[in-house]
Structures are given as C-alpha cells and as structure tokens.
C-alpha cells in the first residue's frame, strides 16, 4: 500500500462513515447540528472557489444564498413549482448576479473588492427589507417568507420537505461530497492553476498567457451558482426565511472566517474550519444569544487573529503535515508518489552548470532561506509536504 493509496483509503473511509452516521446518531438535535455543519462546509467550499483559489476576499456571498432561498421559495409559494426546480432557477439567477457583480469589481485589488462585495449585500438586503411586492413577486419585506409545512408527519420529495432529519442529512452530505470533488478537480485543472497564479501575482500570470480577470469572473459565476443551491437547502430546512437570516453580512463574514482559519485555497480547509468553528457558533448562540448576541463573531475574530499570527495559511497545513507523518508511519514503502515525474530524471540531472551551488549563501541578498539542499536529487522526499495540493488524494 503506497502512501497515496493509504490516503485515498482514509478519505473513502471518512466519506463512508459520514454516510453511515445517521445509523448511530438517532437524535434529531445532533443530526441538525451536523446538517448545519455540512451546510457551512458546503458554502465555505463554494466561497473558496473565489476567495481561496482566485486570491480575492469576497465578503458578500450571502447575496447568493439569499437569491437561492428567495427564488425557490417564491416559486413554490406563488406558483407551486417544486423547490428542486426553484433551486436550479435560483442558481442560474445567482450566477447571472455573480457575473454582474464580478465583472466590474474583480478588476479591483485587495480591500476594494472586499468592500464592494459588502456594499452589494447590504444594498440588496435593504432593498428586500423595503419591498413587499416586486412586480407580481411577493417578497414580504422584513417579515420574510414562511413555507407552510405539509400535513404533520408527511414528507414529500417533490416539495423538498421531510418529516425526519435523515433525508436533509443525506442531501446536504451528497451536495458537499459533490462540490468537494468538483473543487478538487478544478484545483488540478488549468483553471485551478490559472486562478491561483492570477491571485498571487497578476502581472506575472498575465505574461504567461493567463487572462486573469476572465478566469476570476468565471470562478465567481461558478461559485455563485453553487452557493445559491445552499440557499434553497437552507430555506427548505428552516421553512422560514427573512432578509436578516439569509442576506446578512454576518453570514458572509462567517464563511470568510471559516475559510481563513481552516485554510484558504485548500480543499480540506473549509471542512476543517467548519468542524472547528461551527460548534463555537452553535454553543455561543445557545448559551449567550440572550445576553451577548454576536459573541460568536467576537470569538471567531480572536481565533482568526491567533491563527493568522501563528499559521497564516490556516490550520489545514499543520494538520495535513501530521496526517502525512501518520501516513508515512503506516505506508513507508515508497518514498514518493508515482505521478510526480521528477524522481527518475537522474540521467540528465547532474544539473549541468549547477554544480557549484552550495557556496551560494553569503552573497544572495534575496535568498535568506539558506543553502538549497531541497532540490538536490538526493532528497526527493524532503519537500513532500511542500506542495499540499499534490498530496491530497
């Protein structure tokens, strides 16, 4: 068993365990907490497509949650269209809005993009709070929309309403697994490379043929489409939506917090972030919502500061390093993954003019990192953890 296989098996085991969990966890309360946890992991993963891969900081993703939730709910309440169809309609609508927001704003760098996305959420929230009827569509202003439950004890797939928590659990878990597989595929594709390079250094990326703005907008469109799906799910889970629940900066910030603390731009980051932080939010809401509302955001802020000080690339990196060590313990056989082509290059890697490498350190002002032992063919495994993207199954 190679390390690669070991890691893949671990991943399969975790996925299967997640699917089997409702067999053990019978309490509706705990299932609900897990559902919310997956929902946040899902939304953060879709956020990560823009906020992580493309290297900008969107702080307005609740707009898309809101669009998804409102679209499917209005279609169901007024026209009797199944929320499953409404889900897709909302997603398409959100993708359009994502394009309109992203096209002008993604050209801005740094804080300006973040600020403009915040402005969009606040603007749309205030609009929805002040509009009762939008043409024929009933938004119901600040009072929000109530989805009347079906007959007690009755569930219906068509109506996206279920009498127990299990179906919701499986739906969101499937959505999460699918979106993880998708982001993982994107991160390994041309698009992933282009987004990441464009996020790190737009000038250099453009010189290498990357139309940075176009790829960022594409990521934004995909991300807003997928985020809106979560909005419909949330609406069907709670059966009650109002502007302050689905169109708030709180939600947008929380997604950014989870991603930043978990590990921006990594696949596992949103999962680890949600696993660690959702309980904080849940418990602070349960115990302090009356006395100290918003306490969870303060706690998240403090955690974020500490993490940024000591692990600026998020908690996923150190955790993966530990996991790598465990994997090495269980499957020490092959030193390296088979798909990296740089080990068998010994024939022409006497590094032709490169031999006088070692006496390099004193006069290279740019390289405080010291002697470059890393690349020498003698130590192929030395930098195994240097490229987290390659290691993940």
């Amino acid at each position, binding site marked *: 068993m190679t390390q690669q296989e070991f890691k893949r098996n671990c991943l399969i085991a975790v996925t299967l365990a997640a699917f089997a969990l409702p067999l053990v966890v019978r309490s509706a309360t705990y299932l609900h907490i897990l559902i919310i946890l997956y929902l946040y992991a899902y939304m953060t993963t879709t956020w990560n497509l823009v906020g992580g891969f493309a290297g900008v900081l969107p702080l307005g993703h609740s707009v898309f949650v809101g669009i998804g939730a409102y679209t499917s709910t209005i279609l169901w309440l007024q026209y009797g269209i199944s929320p499953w169809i409404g889900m897709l309609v909302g997603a398409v609508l959100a993708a359009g809005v994502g394009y309109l927001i992203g096209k002008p704003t993604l050209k801005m760098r740094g804080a300006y993009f973040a600020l403009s996305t915040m402005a969009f959420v606040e603007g749309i929230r205030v609009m929805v709070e002040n509009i009762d009827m939008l043409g024929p569509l009933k938004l119901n202003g600040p009072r929000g929309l109530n989805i009347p439950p079906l007959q007690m004890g009755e569930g219906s797939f068509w109506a996206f309403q279920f009498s127990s928590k299990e179906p919701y659990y499986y739906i969101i878990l499937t959505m999460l697994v699918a979106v993880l597989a998708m982001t993982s595929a994107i991160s390994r594709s041309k698009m992933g490379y282009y987004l990441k390079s464009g996020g790190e250094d737009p000038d*250099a990326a453009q010189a290498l043929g990357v139309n940075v703005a176009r790829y960022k907008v594409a990521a934004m469109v995909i991300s807003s489409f997928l985020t809106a799906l979560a909005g419909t799910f949330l609406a069907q889970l709670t059966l009650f939506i109002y502007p302050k629940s689905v169109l708030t900066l709180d939600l947008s910030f929380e997604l950014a917090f989870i991603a930043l603390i978990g590990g921006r731009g990594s696949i596992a980051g949103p999962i680890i972030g949600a696993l660690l932080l959702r309980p904080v939010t849940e418990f602070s809401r349960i115990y302090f919502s009356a006395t100290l509302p918003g306490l969870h955001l303060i706690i998240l802020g403090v955690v974020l500061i500490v993490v940024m000080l000591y692990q600026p690339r998020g908690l996923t990196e150190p955790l993966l390093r530990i996991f790598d060590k465990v994997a090495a313990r269980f499957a020490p056989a092959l030193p390296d993954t088979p798909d990296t082509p740089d080990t068998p290059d010994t024939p022409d890697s006497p590094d032709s003019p490169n031999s006088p490498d070692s006496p390099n350190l004193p006069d290279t002002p740019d390289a405080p990192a010291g002697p470059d032992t890393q690349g020498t063919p003698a130590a192929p495994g030395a930098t195994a953890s240097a490229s987290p993207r390659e290691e993940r199954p």
Partner: protein
Amino acid sequence: MSLLQVQEVTMRFGGLIAVNDLSLEIGRGQILGLIGPNGAGKSTAFNCVAGLYKPTEGRILFDGEDVTGQKPWDLCKKGLARTFQIVKPFQSMTVLDNVTVGAFAVTDHRDEARDRAMEVLRLLGMGGKGRALPGSLTIADRKRLEIARALATDPKLLLLDEVMAGLRPTEVDEMIDIIRALRERGMTIFVIEHIMRAIMALSDEIVVIHFGQKICRGKPEQVARDENVIKAYLGENYGTA
C-alpha cells in the same frame, strides 16, 4: 522578414517621455541587446512590446501582424514571452507548478503541461528542483525559474529583462551558456542587460538608448567604440579629461 518590428514608438507618462521615437527590429534567430544608462527607458520599451503598456504613438509588429496595444496574455499565446527584472515567482506553488502555469498556454491537459514543464526545467538544469518552493531557491535559480516559466509557453520571441542582475560571475557564465543554448534551438531573444561582459558576448547586435532615444545601433564592437555611447555612459567630459 524580421520577427519583431518596433516602429517609431513613443511612450509618455504625463509630461515625461520615457521612450522617444524608438525604432528597431529583430530578425529570426537573432539575439538583440538593449542597453542604456539607468532610467534610459529600456524596461518601458520592453513593457510596450510585451503589452503591459500601450504605446502613446507608433506601432509594434510581431510576426508580420500589428500587435500594438494587445494584452499580455494574447501576445503570450502568439509566441511572445517575457521575464521580469524583479522576479515574480508564485510563492505558494512549487517550482514545477510555477512552470506548469506557463505550459498551460500550449495544452489544456494537466499531465501534458506537467511533462512539458519538467522538460523545460531539465533543459535549464533544474530538473531536481521541481518540488522546491521558490522561496528556498538561490537568486540564480529564481532567475532561471523566471526563464523556465517563459519558455514553457513555447515562445518564438523571448524578452529577457536583466536576468543576470545580482548574479556572481560564474553564474553569469552559466546564464550566458543557457541563453546561447536557447538560440541554438532557434529562439529569437531580446535582452536587456547591464552586465557589459555578458551582453557583448551574447548579442548579434546592440541598440543603445539614452533618455528614451536610440543613440546607436550596431555590432557589439562598433557600439563599444561609439563616441555617443561612451559619452552617455561616462559623461561629456570623459574624452577631454
């Protein structure tokens, strides 16, 4: 026909004329050197060619096509690649991934792109360093990484902006060998360089600019003897002193 023609290009930034009525051309397979004192407008001229700036006046023809004002990514796809004077590696990506970004200009498939990137790294003697992060490389290797990324895009014309600045003499020699090897493979190369020894050894022809204007063009030996060039570099009074 020449691969690159710069025709009467002028670049103004407000009142400052950085490049003034510059014309030059590079034949296929040629190495053209561009030199000049600090602030002469070399990098600005480069940036106009590479699409980072749109020239205020004049035209740029690449491979017979007018490419004036086209965007860097489009120019890259047409076969024009560049390096940056201040190296710009993608710090969080491995050396191999850095080069793979360039290789995606040629193919959409990750495996092909990685193979191509690996090939380029080997060509530059960095085959063993694919998994390192750029932060751990020496300055010489970072300059090479910069070239590797550009090469991975399969360019017809390579613009090298001071790839030898900050290198030790032995490293400069290695870089000269690399650039010569690239020319052997049929690459056309446009070099800005401050290290005279290197540019004299490499270039088929040299263009000298001063205050944005071309003051001399010729073979390296001619340029080295030219009176205007000596004045530009050493001052008006050098001859009389």
